[in-house]
Structure formats: structure tokens, C-alpha cells
């Protein structure tokens, strides 16, 4: 493991910002710290950078304990949420700052800065001031500035928060490509799961100061380990009386279930061709147009669930009776989640009409 946190505790008064935090990150990986606000993800990042000190526990980079090394000497590049570009310096001077501090010879500084300017696609903007740049360009400068002294690790605090939604997607891809090109171990903080899933090689999910789960985006999506992750990832509906649904039996201890829209198929009444006995009858409560699909809220035996419907299919309207097929759901007790398949569907596997 290249970057490691071992049993980190951090309190702000009575507030537990980090509660036995343990994780390791391999060299060269791009990792997202994902969680709702106040979940302790930014604290982890700031402790890694040396902007905060943990109460107890060890922080290691490349096998070396860095707890007592001051922030400036940790060899870490940090991209602030609002970039914290030096307003009274040009793009060139911003990127050169870290090198100047290290008393690198002038010619070398120029070479390195120009290289980074080229790499980040900022050519021709060397003489501009931050106020003359767009949000995306500022991010590029902040990125280049953090990379200039060749740090061991790059940390990014909500790197896309200050950018327009339109440009954001484009920049995500750019940043991902750039980090992989440079090959630097990077950790970024985000509260946006789409962002984490799209950009990161690995995701660390935090909640109430604890690490809930660590894994690739796919693992986290497919096999959520904790109730929190099951609810937090994807567009989930939490259901209390899942045993009332066709094909799902009550499991002792697990009183709630999570249903994701992709687990649900909605058919117009009478059009279902398979698994008749596994299907439920429901009423459409709400139809919301989401741009590339419809989001439906459907009431089944008093339980409201969310489903999606392609625009290619026949539209459904509010009040319409539909047939709903629920393939699977996640049930959970206090600590674990289990995937539960629709039992009626398996039994009636062979029924074709």
C-alpha cells in the first residue's frame, strides 16, 4: 500500500470526524472519497495533507509515518475546492511558485512550467491572471500548480464543485486522463456519486466519520456491504414491508429493503410476456420527465417505489394500472446487506406464454 491510514481518530469536541479510519491505497491509483457532507471525507484529506492533525493513529506514505512531518515537507500536491490560486500572480507565476520556494534554478523552472502549461492545454495563457480565466481553466492551473514540484501524492478537495454543470462532465474526463497520464497517486473528495463512479478507479465511502466500504465502483454498486452504502449508491427507494411483495419472503432481523430503479421493470397492463406470477399490479402515482427517460413513482400495495421507463416505449400516465416486475432487492439488518432475488421468478422460469 502506498498511502495508508491506520486506526485514525479525530474529534472536534464531541463531534467524531474520524472514527477508526483504516484504508490503504495502491500506488498510481485514482481514488474517490465519497460521502454526504459532514461524513468526514474532507477531514481525511486535510489530515493527509497535514492541514489537520489526527488525535491518534498513523498516516503512512510509501511505508513512512508522516504524522509529525509538517504539511510543507510531506511532498503532497493539494488542489483546493476553490483552487486558491494566487490572485496577484500570473498563471506562470502561480505554477512556478512551488519550484521557486524550493530554489530550483530559473531555467529549470521555466522548462517545467512550460511543460505543464502544454500538458494542461493552457498554452498562451501564461501571462493571464486568475481573474481572467474561466472556471475550467482555473482548475487546470490549480492542477498544474499542484503537480509542478513533482509530489508523491495529489489531493483534490471537491475538484468540480466550483464549475458549471455543463463543463463539469468534460473536465471529469480530462482530469481522469491527465492523472493517468502523469501516473500520480491521487485522492479526491466528492459528495457526487456520479462523479466518483465515473472518475475513480476505487471509491472509499465515508459516513459519520467511519469508512463504510472500499472497492471499485462496480463492486460498490453491485455488492453494497452496509445498509448505508445500499441506500447511498444509486437511486434507491427504501421499503419497509418488502415481504408483502410477490416473490420475497421475510428474513428474520432484516426489516427493510432497498429497491433500485434498474431492478424494476414496468409494463403496460396485459403486455407482460414473462413471469406473470412474479409480477405485481401497481398504480402510477407520478411521472417525471428526466430528459432521456421517464421517472415513475408506482404504488404497489401501499408501497411507493421508483422505476425508470425508456422514452422509446409507450408512455404511461398518472393513475394508470401497470404490471411491475421486481427482479431483486437488497435487504438489510443493522450491519449487513444481502442481495435477494425474486423467488417467484426462478420457480416460474420456464413459463412462456
Amino acid at each position: 500500500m502506498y498511502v495508508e491510514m491506520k486506526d485514525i481518530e479525530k474529534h472536534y469536541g464531541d463531534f467524531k470526524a474520524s472514527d477508526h479510519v483504516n484504508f490503504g491505497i495502491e500506488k498510481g491509483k485514482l481514488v474517490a472519497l465519497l460521502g454526504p457532507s459532514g461524513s468526514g471525507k474532507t477531514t481525511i484529506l486535510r489530515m493527509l495533507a497535514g492541514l489537520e492533525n489526527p488525535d491518534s493513529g498513523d498516516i503512512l506514505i510509501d511505508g513512512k509515518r508522516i504524522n509529525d512531518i509538517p504539511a510543507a515537507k510531506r511532498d503532497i500536491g493539494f488542489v483546493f475546492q476553490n483552487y486558491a490560486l494566487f490572485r496577484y500572480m500570473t498563471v506562470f507565476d502561480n505554477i512556478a511558485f512551488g519550484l521557486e520556494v524550493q530554489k530550483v534554478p530559473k531555467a529549470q523552472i521555466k522548462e517545467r512550467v512550460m511543460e505543464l502549461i502544454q500538458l494542461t492545454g493552457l498554452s498562451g495563457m501564461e501571462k493571464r491572471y486568475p481573474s481572467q480565466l474561466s472556471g475550467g481553466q482555473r482548475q487546470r492551473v490549480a492542477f498544474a500548480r499542484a503537480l509542478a514540484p513533482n509530489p508523491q501524492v495529489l489531493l483534490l478537495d471537491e475538484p468540480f464543485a466550483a464549475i458549471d454543470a455543463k463543463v463539469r462532465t468534460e473536465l471529469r474526463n480530462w482530469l481522469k486522463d491527465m492523472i493517468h497520464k502523469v501516473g500520480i497517486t491521487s485522492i479526491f473528495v466528492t459528495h457526487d456519486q456520479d462523479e466518483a463512479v465515473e472518475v475513480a478507479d476505487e471509491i472509499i465511502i465515508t459516513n459519520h466519520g467511519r469508512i463504510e466500504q472500499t472497492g471499485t465502483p462496480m463492486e460498490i454498486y453491485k455488492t453494497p456491504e452496509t445498509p448505508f452504502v445500499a441506500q447511498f449508491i444509486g437511486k434507491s427507494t427504501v421499503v419497509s414491508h418488502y415481504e408483502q411483495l410477490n416473490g420475497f419472503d421475510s428474513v428474520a432481523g432484516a426489516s427493510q429493503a432497498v429497491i433500485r430503479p434498474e431492478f424494476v421493470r414496468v409494463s403496460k397492463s396485459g403486455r407482460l410476456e414473462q413471469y406473470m406470477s412474479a409480477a405485481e399490479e401497481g398504480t402510477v402515482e407520478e411521472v417525471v420527465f428526466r430528459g432521456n427517460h421517464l421517472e415513475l413513482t408506482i404504488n404497489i400495495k401501499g408501497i411507493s417505489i421508483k422505476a425508470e421507463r425508456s422514452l422509446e416505449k409507450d408512455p404511461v400516465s398518472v393513475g394508470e394500472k401497470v404490471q411491475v416486475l421486481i427482479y431483486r432487492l437488497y435487504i438489510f439488518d443493522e450491519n449487513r446487506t444481502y442481495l435477494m432475488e425474486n423467488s417467484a421468478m426462478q420457480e416460474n422460469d420456464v413459463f412462456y406464454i
Partner: protein
Amino acid sequence: MEKKEQKKRSKTEIILITVGVLFIVCMLVLPLISVVTNSLKEGIQFYFQSLASEYVVSALGVTLLATVIVVVVNTFFGIMAAWLLTKFSFRGKHILATLIDIPFSISPVIAGLAFLMTFGRLGWAGKYIEKINEALGTDIKIVFAIPGVILATIFVTFPFVSREIIPVLNAQGKEEEEAATLMGASGFRIFRKITLPHMKWALLYGIILCTARALGEFGAVNALSKTRGETFTLPLEIDALYLSGSADSITAAFAVSSLLVIIAVLVLVLRNFVEYKSKKKGKA
């Protein structure tokens, strides 16, 4: 209908502007004109004559010396205090900020009294100074001497510089400094390269204001300076001239005042220039 509304609005507007302008003219512009006309009552020659009098020249010297020292001390303090209050959080920060502002709301006469009670005949520190003088054979005097004048003026203008720069630094936040620290920059480098460019106009204005107040301080100095021609500052000299009562000396008092008025007007012009500059920067 809309036109009528427009007309009505401009009527209130006209009344308010007239009231405001009249108020300022009566309260602020008339006194300015009055200083000038009074100072030139006896002709231009008398004007320069009264400025060249021995007492006035001595007072000008004392005033300038005190002002330079006061401004240097308060600028140094102001920068340190602003750095402390805007870049760090710590227990008692709010109290410290309030304590720094104390001299603002205290009568300058009390400032003078405070130094009298500290370094004067009855003051606890006065004894030690006497002892030092005995031991070293020196003749250090604080009260009724120039050091007292300087101390009292420092007291009165103490928060001026910090007060101007703290809001500017607060608005800027501390992320840029944090970023620079993470890159390993020293405190002095961060200050020079990042913080100073941010606050330079506010700092300049604070220094200007501090200068103006130091030049014009009266109440605090009045309690601590009693020798005309030696420890008197310009305002004290003005006071002495005015109270001596003869028509000539009153005119001379206004002549000396006109010097300070010129400085005050210069301060205002500079202030507006500084404000204009910093606003322009803010928009860019």
C-alpha cells in the same frame, strides 16, 4: 401614470439631495472655508510670518518626529494583529479584537491620564524610571517630555492600521496562504508575495489615516506636554495661540491650522484615490 410616478420620485429625490448637501455644506464645508479666510485675515505676509515663528517651527518638528515613530509602530502592530486575527483561529480571539479597538471609544484625555498614572510622579513605573536614571546617570523622562507625547499618540491611533486591513484580509480568506504553505513557502515569503498585494491599498489607507490622526492628536497630548517651544505639537501650539486671546495670535492659530487642514484634505483625496483603486481591482 408612469410618468407621474417618475416625477414624484424625483421630487423626493430632489428634497433629499438638497437636505443632504445643505447639511454637509453647513457642517463641513463652511468650517473649511472659515479656516482659510480666518488665516488670511491679516494678509499673506502675516500668514507666512506666523508659520515661521520659533514656537511653530519647534512644534512642527516635534509633531513630525512623533508622527513618524507612531506610524511605524502602529503599522507594525497593525500588520501583526491582522495576521493573527485573520489567519488563525484561537480561544479568546473575539476578546482580543475588542481589546485592540478600546482606544477608539475612550476619551483621549483618559489616554493622557493613563500615561500620567503609569510614568508620572505617582505612577508605579515612574519610580523605576527614577531608579534607572539614578543608576545610569541618565535623564530619561516620559511624562511632560517627548516620549510621553509619542506614547499617548500611539495609544490614540493604536487600532487604525489593523482596523483597515482586517476586513480586507477576512474577505480574502486564508486558502491562498494555506496553499503556499503546503508548497513550503516561508511566512515572510507568503506575506510579501500573497498577503501584501491583497491588502496594500487598505494598508496604505490605514497608514494615511493613522498619520492624519497622529498629526492632529490633541487631548491625549495636552495632558502630557506642558512646555511650549519644546514638547508642544502643532495642535497644542494652535491651542496656545488661540487661547492667548489677541486678534493677531488668533489669526496665527488659524494660519497653523490651515497647515493641518491642507494635510486633512490631502488625506481625503488620497483616501478616495485608494478606494477607487481597490474597487477597480475588485472588479477586474
